[in-house]
């Protein structure tokens, strides 16, 4: 049985804060939950399914948060795939709703790495020493930025991708961010400014990297019978996919592709659509290379042609073929909890509803896509894709 269309996103809310030293992580989760439920026209007593990622949720899985928020749920899912978790959760909520496990699913993300002074991308982190790779990797200083940089370096070597092409991703994001009053970096930048910004992890410059921010976001997802009686524009979930990418024990290592290859294929198959049907994309933009690689893997261009594809404003709304991240994305607006998947879904919902900023709203917004990578691009991650239809 196809799950296509068996659920709707009826509530979406992004926390306005970018720095929240005075708020606890639990409070941020609860505030975004309230925001998404208000958006949907529902209350917390309606919620019977709770979805979160264990890594950004204080306490044991989702248990502490349902206790904090006073939720009485009959389904709980704390799947954590890093930044792509909340895109995964859309699919998991769809499945749970279709299976009768819940009627109204709440998904939350929150984080405050900025207030905590976390050097998100540049400081290697030990994590759990039982994690089997840690003793063989941590001593070498792998941080987020240099791991992604190695994927970028290989992409450049193999396909001739240039720093200037990567820079176009940031330039496009900045063109969108100028219209977002909450964006951390609302100034329009040029390719020259990106490639002349300080090198963080060669070949990635500071402006190839996303921001570090506090904040969060939440979604409310429900079954068609309930969605039809709610006030908001109808955004139907018509395709979902998730897939893992691993190093394969070091044999045949290939850092030039992501799990988007499989997750995108699965989502398009469920939707019965292809890349040419998509009018807007939210693509996780932890770094500029992340966008280029995922656009290729989702089939918007041939493998290796992503650099050429994103150049010359092709991702700018109203200018290019594939408008992306019209809120400014992680590169310019925010990156709550170092996890970009939630805001990707939220901006896709805004676009599908026709509620993005008028300067960046795409005209024909019947089919939109959100995609993300959680973990480390190219070496080990989970990619997740959702395709939404404005009904």
């Amino acid at each position: 049985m196809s799950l296509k269309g068996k659920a709707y996103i009826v509530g979406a809310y992004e926390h306005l804060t970018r720095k929240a030293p005075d708020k606890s992580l639990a409070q941020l989760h609860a505030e975004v939950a309230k925001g998404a439920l208000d958006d949907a026209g529902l209350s917390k007593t309606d919620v019977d399914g709770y979805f979160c990622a264990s890594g950004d949720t204080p306490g044991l899985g989702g248990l502490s948060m349902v206790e904090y928020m006073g939720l009485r749920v009959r389904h709980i899912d704390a799947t954590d795939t890093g930044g792509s978790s909340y895109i995964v959760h859309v699919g998991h909520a769809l499945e749970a709703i279709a299976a009768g496990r819940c009627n109204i699913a709440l998904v939350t993300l929150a984080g405050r790495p900025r207030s905590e002074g976390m050097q998100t991308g540049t400081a290697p982190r030990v994590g759990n020493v039982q994690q089997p790779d840690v003793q063989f990797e941590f001593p070498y200083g792998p941080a987020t930025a240099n791991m992604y940089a190695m994927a970028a370096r290989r992409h450049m070597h193999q396909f001739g991708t240039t720093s200037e092409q990567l820079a176009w991703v940031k330039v496009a994001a900045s063109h969108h961010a100028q219209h977002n009053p909450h964006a951390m970096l609302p100034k329009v930048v040029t390719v020259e400014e990106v490639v002349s910004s300080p090198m963080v992890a060669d070949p990635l410059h500071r402006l190839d990297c996303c921001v570090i921010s506090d904040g969060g976001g939440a979604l409310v997802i429900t079954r068609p019978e309930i969605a039809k009686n709610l006030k908001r524009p109808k955004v139907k979930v018509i395709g979902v996919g998730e897939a893992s990418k691993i190093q394969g024990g070091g044999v045949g290592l290939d850092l030039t592709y992501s799990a988007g290859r499989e997750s995108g294929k699965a989502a398009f198959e469920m939707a019965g659509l292809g890349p040419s049907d998509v009018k807007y994309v939210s693509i996780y933009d932890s770094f500029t290379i992340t966008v280029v690689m995922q656009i290729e893997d989702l089939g918007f261009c041939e493998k290796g042609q992503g650099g050429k594809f994103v150049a010359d404003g092709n991702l700018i709304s109203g200018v290019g073929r594939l408008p992306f991240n019209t809120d400014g994305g992680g590169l310019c607006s925010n990156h709550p909890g170092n996890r970009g998947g939630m805001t990707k879904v939220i901006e896709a919902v805004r676009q599908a509803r026709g509620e993005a900023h008028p300067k960046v709203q795409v005209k024909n917004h019947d089919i939109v896509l959100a995609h993300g990578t959680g973990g480390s691009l190219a070496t080990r991650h989970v990619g997740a894709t959702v395709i939404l239809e404005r009904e």
Partner: protein
Amino acid sequence: MSDKVYPAVPPTPGTEPYWEGAKGGKLLVKWCQDCGKPHHYPRGVCPHCMSTNLEWREAKGTGEIYTYSIMHAAKPAYVVAYVTLDEGVSMLTNIVDVDPGKVKVGQKVKVVFKPSEGGGKLPCFTPV
């Protein structure tokens, strides 16, 4: 860079031979005696076929750089890389004892052992 002492993470059950080998100047790679393939990082169960019939073999210690990045955000900057050994298995490592600006994809490298915390040694690579 030459006086850098690398951080160390304690071994987990089954990985001690790798670190003992490194201390003695040997780079050990796990090979599966059932499917015949190597893997890295070393595991107790083959990631290719799930066999536990594994053995340690000493690698030649030579290979080439698959990709790298110079971490300018750190002072001093260091070079993280994936090196593909001649045996066909790739490993995360550092490229050392070289001007970072001279490092290239495809460059031939050989293993060198650098001191790590607790008196151990860490396999790193340097251009041949």
